[in-house]
């Protein structure tokens, strides 16, 4: 029954996105054209990638505020590697980005798992540390477009079957993590560890280790996004994606991920990210002032939280025996 409710909640989000598109189309008819929607999807791909990782972390009753800083640090490192070794094939750059991101995520994970520091404190700290490391590495200088090799910049833009590689990576991540979350023991452990840590412990699941893997995945996705981000915008500096971690958390919340842990799906994170992405892309073109844009994005988040809170409210227990049998 609740499963139907969750799927219907995702259906609701699909409906809301459809409604939003119709509404925007009345003001700006070209918005809903397939080519523009493909652009919006491509624009939203980094958010989708990070939201999937964040969803897994939130599922285990944690939060990762360091994703944007991780993205920026990894982006800077791969940019500098590219400047130093322009001939290094892109496949290695991607591998380094994922690997470095994962290591940074593991650092969060270790602190949460072994030292049992609250995740919000850990990632607030590492967020600042990562940003500081970028400054130390780069001396505060930018890596500009002309310093990056053409191949480095071309990869996310290359078109395959009509869509840029960046979009394909987001699609691939959605598919891979849908499988991980529903078909693997690790995916099941994420749900169990967040749904009821005590019960999970007694069932032989190491809750801390599960959280560690959640941070590792979140970090790896942030690292991958770091490369895609700097190559797409062809620039790397200390403050890229500043404050982006809040958009990522917001996308999860809009997508029905329970901030209390244990509830959430990849589809939800995807839809939440798309909803936010469409609003951010559409509001400028329909001529709404930037200040209203912020207010509208914030309003959407609060409405989503209210809807989730309503849906998760516990139903009254059945007290009488005959009523229980009747139902």
């Amino acid at each position, binding site marked *: 029954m*609740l499963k139907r409710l969750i799927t219907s909640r995702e259906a609701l989000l699909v409906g809301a996105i459809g409604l939003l598109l119709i509404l925007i189309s009345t003001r700006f008819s070209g918005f809903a054209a397939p080519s523009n929607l493909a652009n919006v999807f491509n624009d939203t791909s980094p958010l989708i990638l990070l939201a999937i990782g964040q969803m897994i972390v939130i599922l285990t009753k944690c939060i990762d505020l360091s994703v944007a800083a991780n993205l920026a640090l990894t982006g800077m490192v791969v940019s500098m590697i590219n400047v130093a070794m322009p001939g290094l094939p892109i496949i290695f750059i991607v591998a380094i980005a994922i690997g470095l991101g994962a290591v940074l995520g593991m650092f969060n994970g270790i602190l949460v798992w072994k030292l049992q520091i609250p995740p919000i404190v850990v990632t607030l700290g590492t967020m600042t540390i990562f940003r500081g490391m970028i400054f130390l590495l780069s001396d505060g200088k930018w890596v500009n477009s002309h310093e990056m090799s053409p191949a480095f910049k071309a990869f996310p833009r290359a078109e395959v079957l009509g869509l840029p590689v960046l979009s394909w990576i987001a699609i691939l991540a959605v598919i891979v993590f849908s499988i991980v979350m529903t078909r693997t*023991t690790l995916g099941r452990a994420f749900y169990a560890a967040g749904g009821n840590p005590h019960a999970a412990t*007694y069932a*032989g699941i190491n809750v801390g280790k599960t959280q560690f893997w959640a941070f590792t995945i979140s970090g790896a996705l942030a690292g991958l996004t770091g490369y895609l981000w700097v190559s797409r915008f062809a620039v790397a500096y200390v403050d890229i994606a500043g404050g982006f971690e809040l958009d990522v958390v917001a996308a999860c919340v809009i997508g029905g991920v329970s901030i209390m842990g244990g509830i959430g799906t990849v589809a939800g994170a995807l839809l939440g990210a798309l909803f936010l992405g469409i609003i951010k892309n559409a509001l400028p073109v329909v001529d709404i002032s930037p200040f209203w844009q912020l207010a509208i994005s914030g309003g959407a988040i609060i409405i989503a939280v209210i809807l989730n809170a309503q849906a998760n409210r516990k139903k009254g227990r059945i007290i009488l025996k005959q009523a229980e049998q009747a139902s």
Partner: protein
Amino acid sequence: MLQHPGITTTDVDTTKAVAVLALDKVTKTFPGVKALSEVSLSLYPGKVTALIGENGAGKSTVVKILTGIYQPDGGQILVDDKPTPFSVPQAAATHGVTAIHQETVLFDELSVAENIFLGHAPRNKFGLIDLAAMTEKARALLSGIGADIDPATKLKDLGIASKHLVAIGRALSIDARVVIMDEPTAALSHKEIEELYELVESLKAQGKAILFISHKFDEIFRIADNFTVFRDGQLVGDGAIADVTEAALVKMMVGRDVSQIFPQRTPNVADTVLSVSGYSHPTEFEDISFELSKGEILGFYGLVGAGRSEFMQALFGITRTSAGATEIDGAPVQIRSPADAVDNGIVYVPEDRGKQGAILDLPIFQNVTLPSLGRISSKGFLKLAEEFALARSYAERLDLRAASLDTHVGNLSGGNQQKVVIAKWLATQPKVIILDEPTKGVDIGSKAAVHQFMAELAAEGLAVIMVSSEIPEVLGMSDRVIVMREGRIVAELADDDLKPETLVRHAAGI
């Protein structure tokens, strides 16, 4: 005089006195469910009234109405015979009604004195809390009830029994006229229960009216003056305890005759399956050694705090030990985590099944297979068909009633949730099952079912360890009993030694 179900008689003495607090034909309906149907209940000064009923009879709803948390849909609350609506919990407190809950609702991070006086702390002339006066008053209150607790201690540093005393101190501090005790002895040891009885007597002597909710008949007959029995939200009988027998009460409660006899078993004790030697922990237990055979039910008795649960958690790999060795089927095994324990065929059904049992946001089948994921997966990928088949076979075996195995456990009734938890452990095909207080807070009807089930497990060759603080249960179910006191095994009893006095004597160290 024997009470008949459905017939209400009133004790002659109590009709003369005015009830300090009463419910008059109170009805409470929740969406689709009538939780209480025209029930009446009277509490008299200086009397203990026992409220008896199976789980789901409506006892908790009554407590919530009496304390102003729920509003009745029909009928009224009478204070000193005058209709008085308790529209908010504070209204109940103003009229001197206070409740001591099964799980104490106090604040762990505050001191004992702060807990007692929260909301009505003594003020100094600046309107600020007068800490010195508060501590002094708390000390006086606590020593008045014979509790040797420093008012400056943080609540989290106290044991459960002491927390109850603090709750009682709080009740006294607001000058309570009515004290509601909701299963106050559920978590207490034998000696602590005796102290509670004395306290109840002294509250009686002070003219307080007491509503005592309990599952245990021995304590009801020990301390109650009157009784009120609920069944399925209806009043089925009340009167003076002196006029009623235990059998009559049970009959009223369940509406049928229930034999309180434990299942007859012929212990078919075979080879040793588990052998534990020299288990020690720096602070909780020392040198625990025993052997357990297939088909045997081994009882662990002791006072609360004797280290039984702590040892079981160590055996299950949740806490570490400083020394000790485990052998399964004669082969030494290392248990460093619950996963190791499950892999080696040991499972532990914890005491607090609500908190440690099921994962409410996951569907039934995922809960059932959670500890068995290793068996139904290869290289980390789940085989969903096998998973479903495993869940289905154990759900059927336990007669689990749900629309589908996809139903989320949070939507099931309490009894069915419990079945999910048991199915989960049986699905691991364990050799040894540890049941920690398997019938704590369970009504009589369900208790018998749990006992029957334990007997079946043993008959199938499972070795069962049962940690229990209820003497009848320990004696009725166990083939052998190990008594623990202060972290050590002090006796191992079997056959003719299994007598209530012997158990209590060893447990208390008399």
